């Protein structure tokens, strides 16, 4: 279970966070949530698909990391073998939340929280959050910047998803994979861009997508399918 508390210098001056990537810190995930503003980096490493939240039924983009539950094919003894790690993975054990200010001028004020029950959190190893002089460490500044981008990325992603569903651009798909050992496997439950419908969009629809910054990530997602081959290769390599 998680135990998020608001991050503060007074409460967390001794706190350190382990940044190593490993199964024991929960990095053995089949996919990671992502958002269009990081698609450029994601598509360089991972296939981008869409999944549905079991809690709300809403779509969200994901970077596919493996084919089975708890299988991250990028994870090995020396860590996470890729040039880019999805921000939703990197953020752990932090969370950006919003405090409703009493004056209600700006409405909501961003607040960083930390999950004190996350195994990365301790007082001995890893990156300190605060310097001796009580100033935020370089690590914390880096994380804060990431969280800020995450928040913006998330807001942008909502509009992106609305546009995709309004234009019926998503479709369910099944990926059938035959591995080198002869086993047939199916990847179910994900959604992809319907390229046929994408090609049929008229100028107005395309202009609308482009104006909102949605057109480029759509094509990045389409291009990312080429990464499936690399993922299958990784899977085959593990079977040897």
């Amino acid at each position, binding site marked *: 279970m998680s135990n998020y508390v608001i991050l503060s210098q007074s409460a967390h001056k001794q706190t350190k966070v382990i940044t190593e990537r490993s199964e024991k810190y929960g990095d053995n995930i089949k996919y990671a949530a992502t958002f269009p503003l990081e698609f450029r980096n994601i598509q360089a490493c991972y296939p981008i698909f869409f999944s*549905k939240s*079991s*809690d709300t*039924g*809403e*779509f969200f983009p994901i970077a596919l990391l493996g084919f089975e539950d708890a299988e991250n094919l990028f994870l090995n003894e020396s860590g996470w073998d890729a040039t880019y790690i999805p921000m939703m993975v990197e953020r752990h054990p932090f969370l950006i939340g919003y405090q409703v200010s009493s004056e209600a001028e700006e409405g909501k004020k961003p607040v960083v929280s930390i999950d004190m029950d996350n195994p990365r959190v301790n007082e001995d190893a890893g990156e300190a959050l605060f310097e001796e002089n009580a100033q935020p460490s370089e690590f914390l500044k880096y994380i804060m910047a990431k969280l800020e981008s995450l928040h913006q990325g998330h807001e942008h992603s909502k509009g992106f998803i609305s546009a995709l569903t309004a234009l019926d651009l*998503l*479709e369910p798909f099944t990926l059938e994979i035959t591995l080198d050992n002869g086993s047939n496997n199916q990847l179910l439950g994900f959604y992809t861009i319907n390229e046929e419908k994408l090609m049929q969009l008229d100028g107005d629809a395309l202009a609308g997508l482009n104006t909102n910054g949605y057109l480029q990530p759509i094509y990045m997602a389409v291009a990312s399918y080429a990464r499936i081959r690399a993922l299958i290769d990784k899977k085959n390599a593990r079977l040897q």
Partner: protein
Amino acid sequence: MSNSVNRIVIVGGGTAGWLSAGIIAAEHYSAENSVSEGFQLCLVESPDIPTIGVGEGTWPSMRTTLQKMGISETEFFRECSVSFKQGTQFHGWTIGGEDSYAHPFTLPHKYSENNLAAHWQSVRDQVKFADAVCPQSRLFNNKLAPKNIATPEYACNVNYGYHLDAGKFADFLRKHCVEKLGVVHISANMTAVNSADNGDIASITTDSHGAIEGDLFIDCSGSRSLLLGEYYGIPLVSKSHCLFNNCALAAQVPYQDPEDPIQSCTLSTAQSAGWIWDIGLPSRRGIGHTYSSDHNTEDGARTELLNYIATTAGEQAAADASIRKITFDPGHRAKFWHRNCVAIGMSSGFIEPLEASALVLVELSATMIAEQLPANRQIMDLVAKRFNNKFLYRWDRIIDFLKLHYVLTQRRDSEYWIDNCAASSIPDSLQELLDIWRYQAPWHRDTNHIDEMFPSASFQYVLYGMDFCTQTNPTRRRSDRETAKVAMALFRENAKRTEQLMTSLPTNRELINKIYKYGFQKI
């Protein structure tokens, strides 16, 4: 008068009128003033006559019906106070005590190939029939929803229909029909019916829109049956000798807490001379008592209804209840399509809502009209003949099936239940089935048509829910050992699937709140 059938006039709004309009207009391209292009559908609705608003329960078929009309299921939930209906739970029908059985919408597990009824006989003392063969009875008795928020619209984890607010539903359909499907809405009172030389209806005269001509008139005027009954004099065939209920007392009852659980099935509780329906909408419950005026007084029926409300919703709710009385002659018209006039809804007949047959008959009637819309006046008589045959057959099956619920009772505590078991009140067609079922469980062979309203599984749920005994085969079959093995495996599979659904499905209320907030996805 033009020979082709292009102009359809529906007389009467309400759910029957607007549902018919939507079904027909979804099949045929129509637009205002499009007669030149071939087809026009207009609906004349009196601004002065309130709709009766019967039929708050639907069959699963309504999902396909709405989807074909291009309606968003999310919008439908948000606009019509809709909740999920997964079947009916019958209380007190068998012995008049704590006895209870379920009739779920989902067929028994792997029903297309396996008849589990025979194998259930050997374990009947340990597990109820519905629980043994299908997960749904346990789901709805725990007020769970039939799907998740991530399940696409109209798709399901287990089969479902709806409970809805009939008044809101008619308004919702009207808006959709007019704005999206090109149905012409005329708000006017019909003052006269004008005959053509051949005896057809040429037009109707209205108080504010003059005469409205048409090639086909659909009578959705409710129990008054203005065109088929009053104008053409097609008589009502009473079924009161078989199904006694001819009155209903209806009330709307608020939840004690707005977030109280919502039933995921219709509750039907037997009374001394009738039964009480209890339908949970998100905003309120619809509770009513349908009874036989030959067996109970209005005061007696009212007291039973108020007792039920007091027990299930509190004394205050009973004290506040405003009760509306509806009387009806159970039965149907001798035929439904006469000349160029066809009746849909209460104008064609009405019977107690025991299996929510009202709206599904509207769907079936309008669908047949939409699909077989006569190309011209000459062929209309043949289409009418086929329509009449089909719907007379359907009415007979409905009556048989409703009567089945009564003849299996062991209650002898009132004249009503005793009279219901009198041989003279049981149709021959039903009696024959009952005789057969003593020796063999209902199965696909028992139904004559591919588009039968009640599959043999429905008979199984009622029969074995009400403790009916089918004797096992007197001779041993060569396949016995194998089928018994398969049946036991299917019972186990069903138990496993039930547990899995019990832990993964949200409650009816939770899912409806999520639909309000997030909506369903189309895929």
